[in-house]
């Protein structure tokens, strides 16, 4: 493969008018490809204690999903909360609702779960069985909340819609409650909210945490979620649920994503405490100063360091804009799309550089791109040895998935600086030994 030819198919950031049409995959044949929404649904149900996930799909879809859950205590291991109804040729011809009903009867006789997510996959969606109606009927018959979640991958690009649809389906579990001044956290996919800076700040301010979807909560907390004074949306996937709750219960929401830029974090804190009608905690000034200091000190080590952005737990364009503001050089950004919320960050990036843009989750052809662009850093999941052979240091940021607040800035800069240092050693040949 010719890296120059691959790059010639891509548009630069300034040339993207319609992201759906203008962001191309490097190749038609991809590896490994994006995660599927079924996996996203599984990530979400894992965090909802007491809820059962019933997959309706092929043996293969069921196998891989179950395989992912069997070593997880959250799931309950091999005999845990991830179950399936596998469909065959007969079901494709005649429909699989009856089979699901029979399986559901077995489930209720054996376990009597508190809530069930009926998660459909590609094939039942193609054959068109009505699982929204089936879920309603089962819910009524057994007196247990049953929610249909649709996870056909051919209608979306990655796993995030699976997480989003699962937590949005929880809306049906919520009951009207009197407001109690608490906050819900919507959209945290990784880590435990209790471990974040935001959680500590809220706790110090005497704010009670209600439902955390999908990062770990009970069904009882979801039932009472409407008691919250504010919903904190920590990722776009929490927005549809936040909007529904605002419409139905009048609960306002604030957007507090995993920002890395201290200014954005400060705005998020200010916005949150304004909605909470509480004064901004004093400690935030110190935390902000610390984050800004970390960013400033990172500039010396990172100025002029080139990178390819693969994936991080952060917002892709916000992270790239931040890195560009440190003097780093974005050469290529892999992403799932560019939304309206990214506009300011895109403008920021363009004041520094004009990177190539491509679709994510296709690392196979990337090795040919490395030969052309010769980046110093790669952010995201890749084969580490392959990167080292090309003289590239890998930036690991997975731990950032469990962070919120100013702590993200310090962590991110530290990881970048460590990788930049490693990159120097790799190029000298030291770390290759």
């Amino acid at each position, binding site marked *: 493969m010719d890296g120059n030819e691959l790059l010639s198919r891509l548009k630069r950031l300034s040339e993207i008018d319609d992201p759906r049409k203008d962001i191309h995959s490097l190749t038609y044949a991809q*590896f490994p490809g994006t995660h599927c929404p079924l996996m996203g649904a599984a990530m979400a149900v894992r965090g909802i204690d007491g809820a059962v996930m019933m997959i309706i799909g*092929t*043996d293969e*879809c069921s196998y891989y999903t179950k395989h992912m859950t069997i070593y997880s205590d959250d799931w309950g291991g091999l*005999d845990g909360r991830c179950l399936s109804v596998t469909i065959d040729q007969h079901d494709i011809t005649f429909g699989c609702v009856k089979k699901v009903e029979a399986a559901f009867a077995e489930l209720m006789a054996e376990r009597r779960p508190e809530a069930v997510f009926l998660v459909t996959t590609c094939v039942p969606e193609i054959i068109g069985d009505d699982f929204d109606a089936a879920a309603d009927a089962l819910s009524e018959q057994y007196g247990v909340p049953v929610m249909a979640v649709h996870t056909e991958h*051919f209608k979306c690009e990655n796993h995030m819609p699976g997480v989003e649809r699962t937590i949005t389906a929880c809306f049906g579990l919520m009951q009207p409650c009197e407001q109690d001044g608490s906050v819900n956290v919507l959209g945290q996919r990784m880590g435990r909210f209790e471990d974040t800076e935001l959680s500590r700040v809220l706790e110090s301010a005497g704010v009670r945490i209600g439902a955390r979807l999908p990062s770990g909560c009970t069904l009882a907390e979801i039932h009472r979620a409407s008691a919250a004074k504010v919903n904190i949306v920590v990722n776009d996937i929490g927005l549809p649920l936040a909007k529904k709750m605002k419409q139905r219960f009048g609960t306002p929401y604030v957007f507090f994503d995993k920002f890395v830029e201290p200014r954005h974090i400060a705005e998020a804190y200010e916005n949150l405490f304004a909605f909470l009608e509480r004064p901004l905690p004093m400690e935030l000034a110190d935390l902000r100063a610390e984050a800004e200091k970390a960013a400033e000190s990172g500039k010396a080590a990172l100025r002029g360091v080139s990178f390819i952005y693969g994936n991080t737990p952060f917002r892709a364009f916000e992270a790239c804009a931040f890195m560009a503001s440190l003097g780093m050089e974005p050469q290529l950004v892999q992403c799932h799309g560019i939304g309206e919320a990214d506009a300011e960050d895109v403008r920021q990036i363009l004041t520094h550089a004009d990177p190539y843009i491509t679709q994510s989750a296709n690392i196979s052809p990337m090795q040919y791109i490395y030969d052309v662009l010769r980046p110093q850093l790669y952010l995201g999941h890749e084969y580490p040895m392959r990167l080292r052979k090309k003289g590239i240091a890998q930036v690991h940021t997975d731990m950032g998935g469990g962070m919120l607040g100013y702590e993200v800035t310090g962590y991110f800069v530290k990881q970048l600086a460590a990788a930049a240092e490693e990159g120097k050693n790799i190029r000298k040949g030291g770390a290759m030994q």
Partner: protein
Amino acid sequence: MSLTRFLPVPSDRMGILWSLLNIEDSVIVEYGPAGTTHFSMSLFGELGIEQENRLFTTHLREDDVVMGDTSRLEKALVEVDNNFHPSVIFVSASSCSAVIGTDLRGVCTMIKPKVNARLVAFEQGGFRGDYSAGIRETYRLLAEQIAESGVPKRAGTYNIIGASVGSYRCKADMLETERLMREAFGMEPHARLCLETDLERIRTMGGAEINLVMRGEALDAARMLESKCGTPYVCGAPYGYAGTLAWLESVGKTLGREPAPALVGELKKRAAEAMQYKMYGRMLRRDRPQALLYGDCETVRGLGEFLESIGITPARRISIHNLSTLETPPEGIEYLPTERDRMELLRGMQRTLILVDDTSRRLADSSNTYMRISTPVIDGAQVATHMPVMGPRGADMLMEYVEAYFNTLK
């Protein structure tokens, strides 16, 4: 089938993929949603299969599903051909493309003039049976489309047909088979369908002296190779001491040679020693030794016969996969269509030697003695390649469990 609580039996498509990924110099292009390919990585990684630059997905969008547009696949095939120059591209269906009825063979025919690689289509999307059906189709298509006739004969070589990496201790079993063939006849393996082999070996497999058909699913392929290349075949796998001897004699008969006397002598000696357990069984006052076997049909057959020969009655012999794939399933082996049947069976077992998989072990109580003979491996991992289930070494390992089992009986 209704509620599935544990891991389902892998599908035909999964069996096809783990077989094809063991063939060097080939590439697989899956015509389906990317998520399935990505999701499969953890299982294939666990099975020790490399996927980088071997497995690709086209992804599918709604337009492709609704309109039946296959241009995405066509472009991907041309691209893979240009970029990787594989000898063969295996084009694999997905559940989606199978349901909407994509004519993969038609696409391959149409695109053929634009690519140098040979295109072989697998249209199974996961609905034509379990992995047993998938591996059978793989062996058959490789014999039909890749193996060539008129290849010069290579004396002292043989092919293995029926290796499946989805089976427990597959690699160790193949190494044990190869050791036996070397010691008994001084022969070396040529192609192994499908374990760590390559296209050139498959293309020239007609040059081998004999095909060893290790499981029923490989029979079609062996017959095809017999008619195409004139290669004789022997069915069955070597389990137990006497079973291994009988298998070697059968191979020797087909080859017109006697197995090495030293190996024959050793196997006879070990078989005679193992027969003592018959007597131990008769001396028990309370219990009668019995076993339950659950695994690949051929494994269950072979180990069941061995246990029976040493006085341990196989109470039930269950195949993990559907038996309809096999032309003549061995007598006395059952297939349980639902998971509930298996749960009830295992929960009812007591003071039994259970030769099963890890899931089944967890269903049985602690009065039983457990030995793993089947995937899925949940507790731990397969690492050793010198600890087979087949052959005298496999029998040695089993005898250790038999001894432990007898210690629990009165």
